[in-house]
């Protein structure tokens, strides 16, 4: 029972000078689905990611989110529509504790304006949001650390904070940028559980990953990129044995 | 025995009471832009106070100077005026930036405490506020220009150039130079400003050259920028005469504008041939080992006038000092021979309009007096 596609990418192309990083890429992600995207280094995964999030401007193409074109919107607008992301290298805001980091993620969800803040009428909303943020911190498993200095978090905890922060924005699509990178095996398993939990809430997940062992059991569908071109997509088990994939990705990986 | 001791103690107490010094506040600048002028002026005041005390003080009491540094920051300056008043100063001498003196006035007016600036020369200081407790004995910009014009009358000026800098005082002097020139019916053919920090004054001097004036008047007070003007003047080989404000009367020009200022006339409140000046120079040099110049004279006259007023008031009551100050008639170091500081008809700017002299640079030396007064 495939639900509606929340993200549709058509003919997405990005050139940096003479180099084509992404070429006529097309795919879609449905609500509650985990779409994996793999490929060797330099395949254009991160570029695709940054194009969707609005960090880079596309050369041409179409990115529709919930039926509307979002290509060309600035990143904060895209986030406001419900597309949130995590960063491969954890990038917390160093100047505030864990819970405030999460609350920044909820930035677009605050209803009260500046006057309400100055006048004190926003206090109730602030309290509610703070409670909700604490729940999210609990959900990702940082329950005891809401007031910790982010500098004291371990790398794995930092990754969890990234996720809680993105969830606070009440996303309909969550973009994960190599979330397993640098994690221990045990942390990877916890992470996989969390990602499944997120998808189970009906949130679409686009997951870019280098590590096949992490991705294939987790994703419902997988797209493979090489030199900016999608060379295959399908179910994880199909991808595992796809000749072109083996050639382009696993082959080089095995040789290396 | 016990009684004797008690009497002695009482006597001692009475005599120390009699020797309680009269406190006079000084607000100067040791850090900011007016430091080059404030420091020698203050040294003159310190020397004057020591001399007064050596001669037995005023009303049998010593004078004590309370010196404060306002860094040329007007808001700090006003606070310091209050400090001095709280500490019991019966008079305040202001030797910092003109706006600082201005801001102190808002305090002295409210606290009814006599205040005088012996060196600021902006005309507006006594007119902007109706403050009966404030006097100014520096030579006003309007007097400077009138004196210069009186001297230049023989030159039959029709069109002149006016040049200044963008400092507070430079702008104020330029305003009154302009007014003086307009009043005399002289056309200002070019009016230029050399901003603080300029690296050349050539474009300004070109414009003045193009206007072909009969003479150039300088109202600026920033030494470095004034030197730029002289450099451009020499470089272009210009010939029209230069008449400058009293800023050229400080001796630093003799070294920093070497070879550039021969023949420049400037207005000064200091006549080195005056007997009082010779005596002042001799005594100051003997006491400090350093030769004074006119800025020291301003500060010296300032404290002398204040002491005089207190003497005539016969008391340290501020209201009595105010009345006595208004009646001042004092001949000091500054001013042409025979000049007396006075505040007639309720005026509070006390430099005699006929008390300035015009001098001329001979080589690099501040030379002779070539004109006296406004006639």
């Amino acid at each position, binding site marked *: 029972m495939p639900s509606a596609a929340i993200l549709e990418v058509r003919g997405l192309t990005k050139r940096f000078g003479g180099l084509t990083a992404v070429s006529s890429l097309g795919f879609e992600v449905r609500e509650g689905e985990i779409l994996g995207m793999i490929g060797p280094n330099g395949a254009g995964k991160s570029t695709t990611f940054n194009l969707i999030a609005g960090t880079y401007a596309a050369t041409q193409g179409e990115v529709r989110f919930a039926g509307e074109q979002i290509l060309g919107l600035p990143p904060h607008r895209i986030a406001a529509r419900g597309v949130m992301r995590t960063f491969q290298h954890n990038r917390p805001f160093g100047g505030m504790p864990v819970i405030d980091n999460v609350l920044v993620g909820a930035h677009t969800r605050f209803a009260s304006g500046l006057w309400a803040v100055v006048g004190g009428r926003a206090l109730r909303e602030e309290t509610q949001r703070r409670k909700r943020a604490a729940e999210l911190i609990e959900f990702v498993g940082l329950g005891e650390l809401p007031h910790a200095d982010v500098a004291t978090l371990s790398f794995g905890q930092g990754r969890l904070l990234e996720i809680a922060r993105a969830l606070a924005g009440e996303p309909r699509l969550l973009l994960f940028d190599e979330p397993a990178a640098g994690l221990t095996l045990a942390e990877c398993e916890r992470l996989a559980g969390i990602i499944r939990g997120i998808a189970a809430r009906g949130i679409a997940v686009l997951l870019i990953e280098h590590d096949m062992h992490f991705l294939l059991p987790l994703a419902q569908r997988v797209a493979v990129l090489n030199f900016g071109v999608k060379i295959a997509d399908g179910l994880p088990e199909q991808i595992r044995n796809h000749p072109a994939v083996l050639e382009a990705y696993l082959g080089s990986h095995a040789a290396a | 025995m016990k009684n004797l001791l008690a009497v002695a103690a009482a006597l001692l107490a009475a005599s120390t009471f009699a020797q309680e010094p009269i406190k006079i506040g000084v607000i100067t600048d040791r850090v900011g832009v007016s430091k080059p002028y404030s420091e020698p002026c203050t040294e003159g005041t310190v020397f004057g106070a020591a001399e007064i005390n050596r001669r037995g003080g005023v009303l049998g009491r010593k004078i004590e100077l309370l010196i404060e540094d306002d860094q040329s920051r*007007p808001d700090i300056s006003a606070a310091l005026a209050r400090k001095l008043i709280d500490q019991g100063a019966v008079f305040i001498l202001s030797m910092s930036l003109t706006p600082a003196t201005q801001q102190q006035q808002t305090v002295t007016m409210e606290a009814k405490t006599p205040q005088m600036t012996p060196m600021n020369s902006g005309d507006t200081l006594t007119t902007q506020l109706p403050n009966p407790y404030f006097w100014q004995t520096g030579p006003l910009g309007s007097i400077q220009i009138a004196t210069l014009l009186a001297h230049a009358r023989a030159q039959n000026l029709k069109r002149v150039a006016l040049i200044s800098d963008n400092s507070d005082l430079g702008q104020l002097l330029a305003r009154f130079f302009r007014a003086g020139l307009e009043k005399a019916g002289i056309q200002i053919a070019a009016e230029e400003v050399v901003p603080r920090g300029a690296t050349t004054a050539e474009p300004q001097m070109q414009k003045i050259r193009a206007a072909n004036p009969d003479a150039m008047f300088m109202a600026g007070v920033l030494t470095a920028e004034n030197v730029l003007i002289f450099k451009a003047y020499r470089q272009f080989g210009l010939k029209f005469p230069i008449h400058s404000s009293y800023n050229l009367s400080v001796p630093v020009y003799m070294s920093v504008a070497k070879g550039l200022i021969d023949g420049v006339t400037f207005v000064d409140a200091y006549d080195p041939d005056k007997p009082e000046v010779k005596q002042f120079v001799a005594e100051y040099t003997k006491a400090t080992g350093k030769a004074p110049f006119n800025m020291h004279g301003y500060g010296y006259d300032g404290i002398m006038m204040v002491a005089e007023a207190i003497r005539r008031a016969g008391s340290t009551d501020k209201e009595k000092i105010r009345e006595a100050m208004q009646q001042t008639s004092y001949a000091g170091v500054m001013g042409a021979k025979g000049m007396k500081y006075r505040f007639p008809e309720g005026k509070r700017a006390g430099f005699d309009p006929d008390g300035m002299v015009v001098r001329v640079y001979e080589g690099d030396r501040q030379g002779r007096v070539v004109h006296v007064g406004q006639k």
Partner: protein
Amino acid sequence: MSSLLRWLGAALLLAGAAFLLSDYHNDVYRKLLLWVTLALSYNFLFGICGQIAFSHFAFYGIGAYSVVIFLFQFHLPFPLAILLGIALCILFALAVAIPSARLEGFYLALATLALAQLFIVVLNEGGAVTGGPGGLANYKLPEFLGTRIRGPWYTAVIVLLLLGTLAVLWRLDRSWFGRACRAVRDNPEVAAAMGVDVARTKVTAFTLTSALAGIAGMVYAFVDNTVNPPIFGLDNAFLLLFMVIVGGAGRHAGAIIGAALLFLVPFVLSPLIGHHHVLVFGVLVVAAILLQPRGLVGLYDAIRRHP
């Protein structure tokens, strides 16, 4: 409720002190309170939002001059003069901040550097309207209901200004807006990905703090009942920056401590070591940045943590 009582207590304490002080100490106290007020709003801009601007004193000046000019040259009613003054601050702030916010790096610093200097040029050249280099004087605070607020009562007005400014900044800091500012300071790119409109946040923070500086300037205009250009120049803008750094950027307590310390240093040190106090001040600033980047507040935290 208890927090309201706390604010009230602070107001009574700070204002009450004015009635015990001599004229001199009252005057220093007033100017200290104003510096603290400015440091608080500047801290929000620089310490919390991470923007360097040198225009804070220019806006202080725009506030001060505009209220005096509107009241005594154009004879407008008091509330209107105040509103127009604030509007003027907001207008200038937007004009500088909107183009600067498009650019990364230190462009706001440069644009405000130019603005601060232009402002002084305009004051000096303003003729009768601004009074030129001598500024404007000989005016008095308008009367309310037949009485004029003066002496320690005016100090109380400044206390209200300070606490009002602090209250506004306090609430902003603890809201989505304050977090957005800190996020923009720490990492603008991530902040944008989290939905924060970086440019808008910068512009809002700059405009708001500049308006607060303008309001403080309006209060300053009646402290000595005179306004003149030297107060509003670049020197003081640099001093303000140093205050926030020495005290501890990003913390309200830091701004308060830094402003109090650096404002009072000349008063205390000048009688002891003469004009060398400025050298001491410079060394202090460098030492603070080198040894304790979180400023005196950070030092206090460190000592408390490891006694």
